[in-house]
């Protein structure tokens, strides 16, 4: 404390403060705190991973007495994963989840990109109203109206179909908003020059606007993908056919089974985390920046 006051009154530069003992202790304490928080967040995931690699009964069996064996298995096995893929057909559910999420991304972008483009460059009456309708309408999570929508989809005979799983997830309000925000940053002179050269709007959009907005496209794709990948209520309501069911529900089914096996459940829960983990680690920068500070990019 005294050290800090003297450095402050003499107006010393931050570098000299950093070398002072008080500063060093502060950094050490903060590092310990950061490490403790990090480990606290990671620990349940590690426990799940190690639990999925031991016989299912040991997940709870090893709790008492509490020792390092509670976390680290003494018997290592891949039986849980073998059972997930062989007996429970979890691979099929994972493929279904992947298919639904990927097609949703494709359809979602095919729908959002032209919409955002039209709402950026074209002038027509009611433009801001349409923009607000699309963004607000698609920002209300579709879970909110999933129940009446499931009844409607059943009437339309879209229950137990991939199309039925895909459709509600293709609209994303934030995706449309972010895309327009990026498109507004593209100089209007580029489009005017292209029009003079005889290019139509479709060509201008695909050759000029889209290549300049890769970050916004990745961000929108991720929003749609993650929304569909973690969807739970909608597939629960719409799909009863195991063959078409997605991974999130398949895991929940094993949880509600009477003879549940915690090792298998952990394995399944980790398997559905792998795809988002890879995507987020690779694309994290694109994901975070454009939502937190979309104003500065536009």
């Amino acid at each position: 404390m005294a050290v800090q006051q003297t450095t402050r009154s003499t107006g010393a530069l931050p570098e000299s403060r950093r070398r002072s003992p008080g500063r060093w202790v502060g950094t050490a304490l903060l590092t310990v705190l950061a490490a403790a928080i990090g480990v606290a967040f990671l620990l349940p995931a590690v426990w799940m991973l190690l639990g999925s690699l031991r016989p299912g009964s040991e997940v709870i069996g090893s709790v008492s007495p509490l020792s390092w064996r509670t976390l680290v298995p003494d018997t290592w096995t891949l039986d849980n994963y073998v059972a997930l893929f062989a007996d429970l057909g979890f691979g099929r559910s994972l493929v279904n989840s992947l298919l639904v999420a990927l097609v949703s991304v494709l359809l979602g972008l095919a729908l959002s990109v032209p919409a955002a483009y039209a709402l950026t460059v074209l002038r027509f009456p009611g433009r801001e109203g349409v923009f607000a309708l699309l963004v607000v309408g698609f920002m209300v999570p579709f879970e909110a109206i999933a129940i009446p929508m499931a009844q409607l989809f059943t009437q339309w005979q879209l229950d137990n179909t991939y199309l039925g799983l895909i459709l509600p997830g293709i609209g994303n309000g934030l995706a449309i908003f972010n895309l327009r925000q990026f498109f507004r940053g593209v100089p209007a002179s580029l489009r005017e020059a292209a029009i003079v050269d005889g290019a139509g709007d479709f060509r201008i959009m695909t050759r000029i606007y889209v290549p300049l907005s890769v970050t916004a496209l990745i961000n929108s794709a991720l929003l749609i993908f993650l929304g569909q990948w973690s969807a739970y209520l909608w597939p629960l309501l719409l799909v009863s056919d195991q063959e078409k069911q997605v991974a999130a529900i398949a895991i929940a089914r094993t949880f509600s089974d009477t003879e549940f096996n915690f090792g298998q459940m952990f394995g399944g829960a980790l398997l559905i985390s792998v795809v988002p983990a890879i995507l987020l680690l690779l694309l994290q920068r694109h994901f975070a920046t454009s939502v937190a500070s979309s104003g500065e990019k536009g």
Partner: protein
Amino acid sequence: MSAAAHDRSQRTALRGRPSAPPQPAAPPQPAAPSALPRRRPGRGRDLRTAVLFLGPALAAIVLLRLIPFAGAAYSTLFERVGVGLLAEQRFAWFANYERLLSDPLFLGTLWRTIAFNLVINPVQIALAMAVSVLLVQHLPGRGLWRVFVFVPCTVPLVGSSVAWGVALRQDGPVNGVLAALGLAPQPFFTSPQQALFSIAVVASWIGIGYWMLFLIGGLNEVSQELYEAASLDGAGRWRSFWSVTVPMMKRPLLFVLVADTVANFVLFVPMQLLTNGGPNESTTMLMFDAYRRTYTYSQPNLGATAILILTLIMLAIVAVQFRLLKEED
């Protein structure tokens, strides 16, 4: 083969919007009338393009949002005579609303949902902010601690529910740790006093890291010069947090707060999977209530009424979110 190619080039010529490959093959036709409109930059052209480009999105919002919403709103005006999904329906004006809004169980659910959100969202965002500020400091191993906190946010809610559903069991490892510390075991999901808190843990384990992704992005954009200026003015870490970081982060903070509220208002998985709304209704929220009324109690009209109330609240929150986004322009 040639017929197909000819057909294709003719179609693209007619559309007046040549797509990449066939353009050079087609002989130039200066008098083609359909080529004219695209040369004329006017309102009519804009409007036609707008209809084409916005068509799919507008069709989607009508089919996937407005029609289901209107259908639900309409069905709230009917009552079922008898029990079950096949019972006859009778127009009943606002009887469903009267019934729901005078039902203490529903009012309890409504209040619980609002109170839960008023507590969990600020707490989650405050924790996410605190951890973000800590993890943007220049500390040894910073990248590693960040990844550690981010790992859970890749776990879908159903995975978090499974993990904590097992961890917080009576004979689970959390109680194991409590016992090792000499503390009494806790009932967690099986106690009306602790079940809601346990559900908040399920949501926060994955939520805090997720919102951190956004907050750290915003923190990195706060100019370092502001901190240096504050430091020269004699501000310590605590002071510069409140007078530099918080004012500069106001918009990202408000945005994630509202987005978090939107997400948690429809929280459903942990209730469906772990508590079934209990014990003693202590974890029944609007979304789960609507689900249970519709599918378990076979009261779809009352379920739709609950859905309508939920959707209207969501719309109000999303409108705030939209305003926040627009303000950044």
